[in-house]
């Protein structure tokens, strides 16, 4: 009886561990898959200035120029429900230009506003460089 109990425990433990191992393998696979994807997010308000518009245009252009299926651009108005939801998810409170890959996040809002109108090529290069650092 005792042997049966021990065997039962060993078997249960074995099943649990193998499931866990499978899960962590799955997680690993998901993680790899997640970090393969890079999203460039631009959050803005309803009122948009010339620089804000330029930040979005240049960022979109930089992503499109890379011609990669796993790199995407999305713009959100944080005053609209969809944008608000996304901003909460990424912990964004105001205008922001983010590069996100899995759980990693880079905030390049400052650079975006500094160069979008004065040195657009520099901003484009910077965005592509940051995206490549994730790939």
């Amino acid at each position, binding site marked *: 009886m005792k042997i049966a109990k021990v065997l039962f425990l060993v078997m249960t433990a074995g099943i649990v561990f193998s499931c866990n191992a499978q899960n962590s393998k799955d997680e690993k696979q998901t993680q790899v898959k997640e970090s393969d994807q890079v999203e460039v997010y631009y959050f803005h*308000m*309803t*009122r948009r200035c010339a620089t804000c518009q330029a930040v979005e245009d240049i960022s979109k252009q930089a992503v499109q120029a890379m011609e990669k299926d796993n790199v995407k651009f999305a713009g959100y108005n944080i005053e609209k429900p969809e944008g608000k939801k996304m901003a909460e998810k990424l912990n964004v*409170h*105001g205008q922001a230009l983010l590069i996100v890959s899995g759980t990693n996040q880079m905030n390049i*809002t400052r650079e975006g*506003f*500094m160069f979008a109108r004065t040195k657009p090529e520099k901003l484009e290069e910077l965005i592509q460089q940051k995206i490549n650092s994730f790939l």
Partner: protein
Amino acid sequence: MEEALTNLLQNSSIPLLSAFILGLMTAISPCPLATNISAIGFIGKDIENRNRVFYNGLIYTAGRAFAYTILAAVIFMGADQLALSGWFQQYGEKILGPLLIVIGLFMLGVIRIKFPGVSRYTQRYQEKGVSSYWEVLLIGILFALAFCPYSGVLYFGMLIPMTLSSSSGLLLPLIFAIATGIPVIVFAWLIAYTVAGVGKLYNGLKVFELWFRRVVALLFMGIGLYYMIVTYSIFG
């Protein structure tokens, strides 16, 4: 000009200079143009006395300096910078729109409030139209806090981190405010100088000032309406 300032900012290792450049970038960018035009009108409307216009400009800048420094101090003491920045960027101009319309109506004398104790003050304002330095100071504070998208990023995203890490600390918002005020003071003075010259030509400076003030009131209301349209996404 904007490009030259960006280059200067990139190469500047002196925080005081960087704060000054950031202020100039804020002042000359098209983003806060509407508030700057309103400020120029408000500061320059006492055209009968050009010294007064200059003092108005200084007081207006002091108002901006007060607002920027207090805000930086609040963040310095531990307030949530991100939340504050988000709030001001989202609601600053939304509050400004209706407020400009109300101020414009006051200036035109359409709204008359008779509160005990302040009636003397409002009466003086409505009859003579001369603004007290307190009003100019308040306009400075109000316009500074009504962050437009661009100035919001420059202040919260660049100046505040610099203020928090630099030994110059709260001196930086002060320098930033002075730089945002300089172009406004110069334009207000130039306009007052020109308009006063034209008024003198027609021998009716007082009448001219009255009409100039009415134009400024209408300007306030027009810009207020503009802000309401763009921030509340009226008409789509």
